């Protein structure tokens, strides 16, 4: 079985994000990049199946420029067997649907039968791409998966259903699985893996190579456009209650009841 892992690079989770221009978005020049943390669970799920010999290949799929190759190399160093970087002038400015069309076409072109993705990326937090990829391929999708069993023909997935309840879903293959925290403990790369990753080739493919219509992706095809960027409103300053303990407790209870209305 050939498994695809959708890998996205995102600003490191402790980055301080600044607005570059309200029309253009955030400043990314000084940002440190990392693999989207949810994608690390996806990669680990795939590598575990490779270790168990359920999978024969684990292919990383990334939409992006050459600057994403460091993250792809990291994935290869952990044990992925191949990588495709999807890069084409026509891809620029794609919205989630455009990105999903690119990825779905690549999944098809690579002959992949099971796709693991993070349930969402921590930059845009859209949580749309994995489901859209499944829909475009006509495959089943299970999202927010935190426990999984894969057999040759299908998968059984568990996820939180709210209130402590568990939702158990069975899905036939091919399928797309959106991975959540708790699914596994992502492994560290090894030095041998790093040396081997050097010898693995990252294939760069454009629209023609994966058979996606260039007119269906990119800025011109985007259904969603971002119109404005801004900082969250500044937090109002806190209030320090005055008086002795008894007076302050009284004032605090009154504020929680009458102003904040939480008790």
């Amino acid at each position, binding site marked *: 079985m050939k498994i695809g892992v959708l890998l996205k690079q995102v600003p490191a989770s*402790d980055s301080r994000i600044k607005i570059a221009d309200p029309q253009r978005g955030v400043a990314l020049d000084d940002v440190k990049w990392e693999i989207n943390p949810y994608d690390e669970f996806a990669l680990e799920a795939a590598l575990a199946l490779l270790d168990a010999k359920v999978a024969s290949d684990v292919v990383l799929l990334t939409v992006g420029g050459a600057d994403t190759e460091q993250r792809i190399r990291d994935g290869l160093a952990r044990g992925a067997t191949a990588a495709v970087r999807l890069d084409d002038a026509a891809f620029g400015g794609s919205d989630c649907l455009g990105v999903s069309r690119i990825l779905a076409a690549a999944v098809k072109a690579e002959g992949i039968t099971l796709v693991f993705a993070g349930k969402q990326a921590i930059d845009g937090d859209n949580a749309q791409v994995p489901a859209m990829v499944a829909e475009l391929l006509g495959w089943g999708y299970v999202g927010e998966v935190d426990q999984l069993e894969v057999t040759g023909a299908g998968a059984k997935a568990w996820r939180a259903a709210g209130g402590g309840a568990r939702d158990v879903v069975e899905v036939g293959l091919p399928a797309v699985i959106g991975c959540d925290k708790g699914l596994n403990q992502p492994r*560290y*790369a*090894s*030095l*041998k893996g*790093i*040396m081997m990753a*050097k010898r693995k080739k990252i294939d760069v493919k454009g629209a023609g190579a994966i058979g996606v219509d260039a007119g269906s992706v990119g800025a011109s095809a985007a259904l969603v456009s971002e119109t404005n960027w801004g900082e969250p409103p500044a937090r109002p300053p806190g209030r320090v209650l005055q008086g002795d303990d008894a007076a302050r407790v009284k004032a605090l209870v009154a504020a929680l009841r009458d102003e904040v209305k939480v008790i």
Partner: protein
Amino acid sequence: MPAKYEGLDFYNIDAHLTDEERMVRDLVRQWVDDKVLPIIEKHNRAHTFPDELIPEIGEMGLLGMNMEGYGCAGMSNVAYGLACQELERGDSAIRSFVSVQGSLAMHPIHSFGSEEQKQKYLPKMARAELIGCFGLTEPDYGSNPGGMVTKAVEDGDHYVLNGAKMWITNGTIADLAIVWAKLIPQGGTLADGVIRGFIVEKGDPGFSAPEMHGKHSLKASVTSELVFEDCRIPKDRILPHVHGLRGPFSCLNNARYGISWGVLGAAQACFHSARDYALTRIQFDKPIASYQLVQNKLAWMLREITKGQLLALHLGRMKDDGTMFHEQVSLAKMNNVDIALDIARIARDMHGANGILDEYPVMRHMANLETVKTYEGTHDIHNLILGRWITGIQAFF
């Protein structure tokens, strides 16, 4: 919450590293953040080495990582240096464990051992399934190892070892020891002996390795004595391809090289903590980082760490292309340990009373670096090595 650690890179040294070297550095940095820093103070207090980390160190491939073949990763010496730097940011004990296993125990087998010895020991040592230690120093012979009194004599198809070694990192937990002893010819005296390397295994008759206690430094490391009382080992345990002090000195040069990088990790941990503390500690209504005396200290740390990084990187490149000579290693080991220890002391001072608490890493590093200043050739001995290189006159004795 303290700010997340970022390595100092004032002169954009990153641009001079290969992708693999950066990946190794980032891998070990992340591992130290995740696995070492949360537990190291506990082990330091308890005088215990974190044994639970040993399999992970093996799985990552850090042991003997700059050696070729026999299950070793075959990476550059610069990559090895960067790994040492990150490990010692955690604690000198962790870096010492890796240094001893790789540079002092695996290296002599790799360089001076028989093919059978290499096949038998190295792959398991690379995976941390066998732990090694290195016995050169004796109670009465530290800076003068040539005076050693541990001796080996032939007895049929065995060697019989007698003597004692001291200050042996990993000794008690080791499965094998590389022991340097004088091989005495039949009917000869100690003065006739030639220094040879022997592989002594745990469980060999007459061999014991009691742990030393009472250390104020390198508390999270196991330090031991090695005792040989008519210890009999088979003859195929001698390292066949080296005679004399060249053997142990070759090991020490490799370990000193790793130290010259490692201590920069400890220095950066102290710098990071001092900067963070100075920016958040308010005295006279302002962060203490606003005061010129404090800024002067931080600027000095930045200056010395940056110089030390350039020294270590260039030394590593020379080691990789085979042009490095051992006096250059002495200079880097001596200089970088010296500045790291001073940085740790000044960082301790900048933390005020808080600096003596193990809530901050500075006093742990400061105490560790006192050991690092002494082991693998003391500061003064390295000066004498350089003095001999400059003048051509040895001044050791």
